[in-house]
């Protein structure tokens, strides 16, 4: 009788422990041809829980042929489970004034366990000199 109760319980515990665990392996060329122009960043962390799960690896920037600033951020999921978050880019001109952008979406995104992922955005005008990206856990 006890076995009948214990067996499903053990099964459920096993599912709880392993069911949502995923982790990603990857391979890439060791001798890189492209050089990322990394920039120093300033971080404000108010959600320590999200920061522990999905961390910022680095930020690099480039200019598009049309003279627009392009930003790329590398994220790393430190957990072994899928994490969902949203982010939004904000752009500022040379005077630090925010540039109103009609198409500035809050982008829902997800990252697999152990995955390293890039998110990027192009400035809406060539007047954009600075940026800020907001992250929030879903």
């Amino acid at each position, binding site marked *: 009788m006890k076995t009948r109760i214990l067996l499903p319980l053990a099964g459920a515990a096993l599912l709880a422990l392993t069911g949502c665990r995923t982790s990603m392996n990857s391979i890439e060329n060791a001798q890189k041809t492209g050089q990322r122009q990394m920039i120093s960043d300033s971080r404000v962390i108010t959600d320590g829980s999200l920061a522990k799960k999905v961390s910022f690896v680095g930020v690099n920037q480039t200019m*598009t*042929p*049309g003279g627009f600033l*392009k930003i790329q951020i590398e994220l790393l999921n430190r957990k072994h489970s899928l994490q969902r978050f949203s982010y939004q880019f904000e752009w500022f001109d040379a005077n630090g004034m925010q540039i109103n952008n*009609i*198409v500035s*979406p809050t982008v829902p995104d997800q990252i697999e366990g152990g995955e390293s992922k890039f998110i990027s955005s192009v400035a809406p005008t*060539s007047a954009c000199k600075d940026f800020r990206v907001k992250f929030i856990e*879903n």
Partner: protein
Amino acid sequence: MKKIILLFVMAAALPLVVGGCATPAHYIQTGGRESLVTVNSINIQDFIQAANDATSDLLASGALDKVANPPAVLAISRIVNNTGQQIDTDLLTKKIRVALLNSGKAQTTTTMGLGGTAEDPMAKGLQQESEFKSDQKATRTPDFTLSGKIIQTIAKDGNTSQSTFSFQLSLTDPKTGLAVWEGEKEITKQGGRPSVGF
């Protein structure tokens, strides 16, 4: 004493029962995290995302910079709606137009349209009048036309539904008839019932 406590609890619960769990009307940020998400229809946040991706990709490509007299002049061609819902494609194209105008890279003509229909008939009339009086052609031929298609792909398994909306856009040089830029953004949503937020 017990009766009083019971009555007090019941009185407190009454507004909840009468009012139900409906959320009172309030403002939210358009396209923000509180927006409603429905699987089988395109939500406003989907249009914003698709327009943002298309604009960013187009600006980064440099296709608009290859015109003799910048900024490039754009004419809006047909955007085909191949989804199950009735949508106004201006929800996509207007956002792209505004973003391109603000970028300084392109302007859109409102006096030329599909089948000779102008978006702004008054501007077209005044333009024709001006051309007649001055005996000079003032209309600038568009450097590019923007066309596209919105497609919905549906999948269902049990109570779970899935919809993928593909926003396909092409920028064509009318002189050559060749697409100088093409972009596609796919948004997939899955679920059993509508929800709030991402």
